[in-house]
């Protein structure tokens, strides 16, 4: 019994190794890309000819755009690539837990840390893009200059919390499932799987919303300034 799929190593050459997490992630990327490619290959223009898959994708994309806009970002299309991919990746990774042998890559702290690091890098990038380098740096001195260390610590700690939250939820989900399979192999694992699906979706939503809020907080100051 292993804690995460990191420990399943298929191939190793010194520092470089090919573990279960990376392979599963590649699989996910393949599924997402090929699915998107297949559905968007021939998009219908007429209302009557829209396929159900196309409407599914349209609903997802429109919903994401709407959620991003509701948090307070003025141009949702600009952030859709990053935040949308974040959500789709986590949600797909969590939803595929209904397959028996599958181990979600989000149950590995390495993956969640990578995602949180992506957010950690993306927030300053979007902030600088929105209001310039000095403008973004000023946000760290926001209430007063004394708050600078606390702002920096909060920046680090929230990244850490982001990664550990997702990891803890997914890891505990699969762990409970594994233990239950040993104790009561019938019925109860299914209930817990259902709970795991719900938790996985909620966690994907929370991760994306938190990333959106952080980006909005970094990009919003400019709007306040121009308003004043």
């Amino acid at each position, binding site marked *: 019994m292993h*804690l*995460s799929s*990191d420990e399943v190593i298929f191939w190793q050459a010194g*520092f*470089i*190794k090919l*573990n279960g*997490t*990376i392979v599963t*992630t*590649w699989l996910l*990327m393949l599924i*997402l*890309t090929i699915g*998107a*490619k297949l559905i*968007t290959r021939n*998009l*219908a*223009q007429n*209302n009557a000819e829209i396929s159900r898959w*196309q409407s599914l*994708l*349209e609903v997802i*994309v*429109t919903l994401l755009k709407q959620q991003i806009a509701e948090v307070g970002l003025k141009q949702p*299309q600009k952030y*859709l*690539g*990053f935040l*949308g*991919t974040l959500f*789709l*990746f986590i949600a797909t990774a969590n939803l595929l837990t209904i397959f028996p042998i599958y181990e979600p*890559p989000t149950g*590995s*702290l*390495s*993956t969640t*840390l*990578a*995602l949180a*690091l*992506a957010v950690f890098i993306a927030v300053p990038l979007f902030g600088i893009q929105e209001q310039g380098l000095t403008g973004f740096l000023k946000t760290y001195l926001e209430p007063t200059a004394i708050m600078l260390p606390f702002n920096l610590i909060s920046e680090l700690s929230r990244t850490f919390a982001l990664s550990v939250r997702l990891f803890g939820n997914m890891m505990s989900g699969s762990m409970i499932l594994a233990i239950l399979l040993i104790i009561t192999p019938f019925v109860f694992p299914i209930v817990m799987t259902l709970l795991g699906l719900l938790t996985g979706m909620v966690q994907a939503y929370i991760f994306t919303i938190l990333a959106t809020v952080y980006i909005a907080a970094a990009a919003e100051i400019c709007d306040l300034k121009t308003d004043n």
Partner: protein
Amino acid sequence: MLIDWFTVAAQLLNFVILIALLKRFLYQPILQALDAREHRISAELSEADAKKQQAQAEYEQFCQKNQEFDLQRAELFKTASEEAKTERQRLLTEARIEADNLRSQRQQALAQEVEVLMTSLTRQIQTEVFAITRQVLTDLADVNLENQMIAVFMEKLRSSDPEIVSVLKNTATPLLLRTAFTLSEAQQLEIQQTIAKIAGSEIELQLTTEAKLISGIELSSVGQKIVWTLADYLGNVENNLKNLLQQHIDVDKPEKHPTEFSKRAAEDVS
């Protein structure tokens, strides 16, 4: 150790690649399709709006035209009805006048007919009455009546009418005495005496009998005569009667006002 730093780096790279892939294959096409559809729908909507406006404008135009048409129709109808009314009035008046004329003509004709009939009837009756009278008188006339007549004649002579006297006095030629009956000797004598007495001289009398006079006596000189006959009498009566009848017909003619009818017709129309 929970964190494998190579895996973290690999996952970060994987994530960036996934972002690029999904951007290329998912977001761009879907957003483009959405935008295109939005554009198309908005274009269709604007087109529909334009069409709607056009339809509205056409509808308004149609309404206006309809209204105008209604107005025209009402006007035409009014004019036509007025014309019909005046025409009817005219026709009625004409008919009334014609009827009046016809009636008056007929009345006239009737009156004429009545007059003619009356006249002829009167004449006939007159003639018949007088014929009967004459017949009766002729049949009934006898000596006594003759005598009486002569007596009356004599009386008339004796009344010494200045006219008669002058006639008798100035006559030179013998007097012609016509009677219906043959006078007796005494009677002749008496007449001769009486004339003589009036004229103051003897005057010769020529005596003739003529049944036409109907128990009468006529004394005629040149251009002048003194008559006392029933025929004359009857002639006088006849003349009087004729006059009377003529008057009667004139009075009886109905006199109605021709305007009365037209007045009533006018009330009917209004």
